[in-house]
């Protein structure tokens, strides 16, 4: 087992595409860290760098304080689980799991014991003589896991290992993987594009986004799932974590005696909040407010902040998600800089989570208020969170 440190990692492909830039973070010994982000955010490239399958142009990679930047994958003592499992099709399950141990010149009886123990743990004993082609998707996934754990490596690297499974099996395997990690206590770096998977599995989650030049960094925030949800550092993280995503609304801030008045851009909606030091500095300017869907509450019409028609309601049983439009310019979270001059047209669609009993009829007006204390505030130019 080992810790892992990414120190100023950068990778530019020969055609000039910047895949990874300025990524620095550490994974503690035994920690389960998830890399999450949309496609093209460099998460798989980072994982492949950790495996040694991809070279890096700048920065260092440390394992237990030893520099492994130039070390071949063969010599890193890590195990990797691939998205398509990459099982050796011509070998039995047993040989698939034994292959890595054989490469380490381990005695046969020891290999046999390790393989059988791992098979037992993963409920694969019955399938040891089968070829991967004769297994179901879930079984293949377990064999891929078995091939990794049988070696007792210093770290596990997992590249979207559950994405080829059907939804039900994925949820089940998610739990099993997490249990397995807790039981084995092996340092794990896990890549996914599914933020639910990231939130449920990671001790900490690193949110990455695509970069376009070497000055930016892919890494937006690395923190516990709850912290990412409660205190996102910027618009990108706020918009990426949470399902349905956080709502963003542009407001004009003006200072009043002891308070700040926020008027929703393009509408007559406005509200007041107690003056706060950092936010007060934005008085007279536009800022972006983030509202999680569960921060809305259905209220009497007299107290309503929003009172809009609801064209779409999604009843999920335990909750209902209602969608409504306000006549305010939408916020594009992917490039915050460009949006300030966004033409003042179009509608901003918001989503609120309400109890099913209060589900409105189609196109009925729904009076909603918001817990103003919990609002997230963002700088419209840099996208960073404004917090006291």
């Amino acid at each position, binding site marked *: 087992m080992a810790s892992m440190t990414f120190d100023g990692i950068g990778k530019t492909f020969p055609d000039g595409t910047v895949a990874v830039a300025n990524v620095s973070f550490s994974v503690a010994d035994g920690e389960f860290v998830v890399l999450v982000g949309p496609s093209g955010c460099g998460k798989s490239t980072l994982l492949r760098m950790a495996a040694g399958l991809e070279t890096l142009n700048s920065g260092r990679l440390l394992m237990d304080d030893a520099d492994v930047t130039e070390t071949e994958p063969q010599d890193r003592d890590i195990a*990797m689980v691939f998205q398509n499992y*990459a099982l050796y099709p011509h070998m039995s399950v047993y040989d698939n799991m034994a292959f890595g141990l054989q490469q380490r010149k381990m005695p046969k009886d020891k290999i046999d014991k390790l393989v059988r123990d791992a098979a037992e743990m993963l409920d694969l004993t019955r399938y040891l003589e089968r070829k991967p082609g004769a297994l179901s998707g879930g079984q293949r996934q377990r064999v891929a896991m078995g091939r990794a754990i049988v070696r007792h490596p210093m770290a596990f690297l997992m590249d979207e290992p559950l994405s080829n499974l059907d939804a039900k099996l994925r949820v089940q395997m998610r739990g099993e993987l997490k249990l397995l990690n807790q039981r084995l206590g092996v340092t794990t770096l896990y890549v996914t594009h599914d933020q639910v998977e990231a939130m449920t599995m990671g001790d900490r989650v690193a949110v990455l986004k695509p970069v376009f030049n070497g000055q930016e960094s892919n890494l937006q925030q690395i923190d516990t799932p709850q912290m990412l949800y409660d205190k996102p550092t910027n618009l990108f993280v706020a918009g990426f974590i949470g399902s349905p995503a956080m709502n963003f609304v542009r407001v004009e801030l003006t200072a009043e005696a002891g308070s700040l008045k926020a008027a929703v851009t393009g509408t007559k909606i406005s509200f007041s909040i107690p003056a706060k030091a950092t936010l007060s500095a934005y008085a007279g300017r536009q800022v972006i407010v983030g509202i999680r869907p569960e921060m809305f509450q259905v209220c009497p019409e007299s107290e309503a902040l929003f009172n809009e028609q609801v064209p779409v309601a999604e009843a999920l049983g335990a909750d209902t998600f209602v969608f409504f439009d306000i006549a305010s310019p939408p916020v594009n979270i992917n490039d915050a800089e460009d949006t300030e001059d966004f033409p003042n047209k179009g509608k901003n669609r918001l989503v609120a989570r309400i109890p099913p009993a209060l589900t409105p009829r189609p196109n009925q007006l729904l009076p909603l208020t918001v817990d103003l204390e919990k609002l997230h505030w963002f700088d419209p130019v840099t996208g960073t969170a404004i917090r006291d």
Partner: protein
Amino acid sequence: MSRRHTSFNTALTYAAGLLFLAIFVGPILWFIALAIRPAETAFTMPPQLTFEPNLDAFRHILVDPGTNAPQLVNSLIVAIGAVLLNLPFSVPAAYALSRFKLRGKKNIMLWYLGLLMAPPVAFLIPYFILITRIGLQGSYFSMILVLQTLTIPFSVWLMKSFIDEVPVELEEAARVDGARWYTIMLRITLPIVRPGIIVTSMFAFVFAWNNAAFPLVLSSRSTATLPIGTLGYFATSGVTWNYIAAAAVLAMIPPMIIFLVFDRYVVRGLTFGSVKG
């Protein structure tokens, strides 16, 4: 209406099938007939469809001293030798061209293609001089060696396409598992492309088997292959068509046996991309 339409289509399909069969199998059948009919009826006009079959021509080419039986053995030695010399070079070369970052990789592949497209006749004289200089003329090895100029380029192209089909992740998994490139090649990639190796061997065999140009200048009387023997019947004293036909029929048998035995590998080899593990 629609049923009638279907049966018309079926009839058309069968008609097309029969036409192709006639084009491909017709000449073979005609040659077999030529081998077993009396020599003097070979080119009678109109063609004589009935005749008394005899095996005189086969008896002559196989049993009579100094004819084709030893040449059949020579052909087998040369063709099998060509395959055995071919694989240890073409398979690793194809692997390297498929997997490694090599400078001028494209040029190498084009160079191979050029070798394949060049007429063998163009090489005959240089090879003859070269082989004579190093004292190999008339040996089996000289033919086996020179045939590689045809079989290796073809085999490398064919093998590379098979190896390209093997997902790189498998090799990456093996690298992470601690295997070096030679272990990966021998224990992961080559076993997976085994159908491809068999198909490549078959093609190399048939290439060598059918080749007449190189043995024509490189073989001696005792190492001459079957195509040379067949050419020998075009004598100044007249063309003995039944002997030629019998020798040609004989020459068809080994490749046919090979294709029948390895039939399933051919199918698997040619549909390789669709059966990924």
